[in-house]
């Protein structure tokens, strides 16, 4: 593996649950509960999971949009928690975020030019240089030059997502976290945006964390995939290994549940019982055990750790007593 660009250890995020007359914290929803994760320079790491898995929260923590409740995070060799002032601002530039809903994340009263240019303003560029950078970026994301003078509502969903990508990339970040960047788009537009993300990564030598519930899209774009369930990583390995030999029962179920446009395909769908449990009171031991078709008594007693499984070459981490 490459030298990690981003290094996370023991990252947690607990959200207080308030109740009663004085709105006291009565419990905590453990959205992200102790994650160790390295993101290699130049790689695309996929983060998959269902709602409540904590994948979006983790994605926001990784770019500094949200402060973790506990844990260490270092970027390019620097501890993020120690940063202040100008250094913090520089760091913020190098980490960018692409949102799922391109309409909700763009200010409707601003023209595309200013949405994309907003981040540049802190750099005190002269107008000509600023406009040049914006035009260049719009061109890179495949928007016509005239789009600079448009308001978001004048654009289609796919075009708005291109604006969101331009806004993130104009600052020349090193790491980009994209949270469900194609989920809100129509099928024929999804492939346009996926291809664009792949091209831009190559051209600008970016590192991606691609957060999504869509396993097919994640596996298409990612070099490695981390699977999350209820705030924990359950499996982490290369895309190829994960798709070919998934070891965690949850990953197996998830893979089998993806409907593919191939009629008559004979395959065993693992249908999981029940819903994802409440993150306020996660099950003891393995959090997946309440829905796991293979669960044993040990799964309720001991929490499985994310451990390397040595089957052939390549790192393959799994948190399962039975794998």
């Amino acid at each position, binding site marked *: 593996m490459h030298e990690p660009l981003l290094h996370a250890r023991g990252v947690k995020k607990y959200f207080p649950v308030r109740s009663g007359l004085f709105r006291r914290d009565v419990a905590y929803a453990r959205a992200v509960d102790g994650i160790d994760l390295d993101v290699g320079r130049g790689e695309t790491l996929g983060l998959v999971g269902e709602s409540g898995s904590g994948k979006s929260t983790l994605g926001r923590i990784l770019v500094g949009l949200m402060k973790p409740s506990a844990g260490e995070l270092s970027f390019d060799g620097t501890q993020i928690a120690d940063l202040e002032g100008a250094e913090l601002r520089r760091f913020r530039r190098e980490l960018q975020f692409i949102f799922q809903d391109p309409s909700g994340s763009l200010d409707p009263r601003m023209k595309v030019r200013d949405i994309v240019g907003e981040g540049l303003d802190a750099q005190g560029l002269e107008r000509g240089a600023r406009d040049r950078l914006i035009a260049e970026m719009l061109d890179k994301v495949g928007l016509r030059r005239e789009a600079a003078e448009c308001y978001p509502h004048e654009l289609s969903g796919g075009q708005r997502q291109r604006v969101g990508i331009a806004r993130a990339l104009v600052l020349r970040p090193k790491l980009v976290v994209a949270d469900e960047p194609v989920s809100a788009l129509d099928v024929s537009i999804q*492939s*346009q945006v996926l291809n664009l993300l792949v091209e831009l990564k190559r051209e600008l030598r970016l590192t991606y964390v691609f957060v999504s519930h869509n396993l097919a899209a994640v596996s*298409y774009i990612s070099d490695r995939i981390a699977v999350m369930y209820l705030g924990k990583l359950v499996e982490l390995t290369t895309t190829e290994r994960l798709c*070919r030999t998934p070891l965690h029962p949850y990953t197996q179920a998830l893979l089998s*549940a993806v409907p593919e446009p191939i009629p008559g395909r004979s395959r065993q769908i693992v*249908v999981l019982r029940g819903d994802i449990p409440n993150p306020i009171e996660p099950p003891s031991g393995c959090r997946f055990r309440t829905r796991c078709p293979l669960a044993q008594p040990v799964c309720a007693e001991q929490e499985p750790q994310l451990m390397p499984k040595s089957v052939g070459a390549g790192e393959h981490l799994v948190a399962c007593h039975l794998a």
Partner: protein
Amino acid sequence: MSLLRVENLRTYFDTRSGVMKAVDGVDLDVREGKTLGIVGESGSGKSVTALSIMRLIERPGRILPGSHIYFEGKDLAAASERDLEAVRGNRISMVFQEPMTSLNPVHTVGNQIIEAIRLHRRMSARQARERAIELLELVGIPSPERRVDAFPHQMSGGMRQRVMIAMALSCEPKLLIADEPTTALDVTIQAQILELLRQLRDRLAMAVILITHDLGVVAEMCDDVAVMYAGEVVERGSVEAVFRSPQHPYTEALLRSIPLLGMTKAEPLNVIPGMVPSALRWPVGCRFAARCSYASDHCHRKPPEMFATGSGYAACWLRGDTVERSQPGATADA
């Protein structure tokens, strides 16, 4: 045998900017006990088609004269409101995408199911409650005798969708229309609901119209498929035939634009350039021509007819040279 036959369905909406031709001459055929998938992107008219079949179109929308919706020997397009009430929720039921907004938050799920039952069946309150519990059990809700008194917000998204299905099945319809029933759900919950729909369909011998944007769901659930684009059906036939060898360039391009598990970024995805035209101003010729890699001048000038393709129908001039023309209202099944 066809259970439902839609012919030349046109549903327009009068808006301030002009007439929006959301559904513009759709033919469909649903075979008894079989599942038809209607697939298309947003704005293709698939949901409006479903609402039109149920005659749930309200002003400023209108179903145009000349549209026909034949179901059990009646033309629903011409039926009176009274006749429709006997059909809706009884012979034809519908399940929507977002169960939270379709359920009433201030009533228990049991009372909502009971109301649906008693609308069409003479039954005492106690009998109806028994039936509601039975239905909840049928759709796989654990401890139904307790859950019958739960409120929608006390249930998860998957459970609420099960309640919606229970309600839709309360009168054992011949046709269930499910509009994106799993789109709002997680993958593993989607698998549960699809599995449930499959079981119920077989057990109750009902036909299903499944409306979705997900070609994977169609491949997994449906016998027949109709592909919609810009208010029209551009291709229809058996799922097997259409997916194996799509006859319309849009279907083909769509199938090639989805990443499959195991595909890598080394193979770029097929891209359909541009976007769907506006329903206020459909193009003059083939509505897909501007995005089609096979389009010729002729395509831009003249809208294609529906041509028989051997295994189904496709509205594309490319298919027009070799095979005879389709008869209006002819069915796609062999």
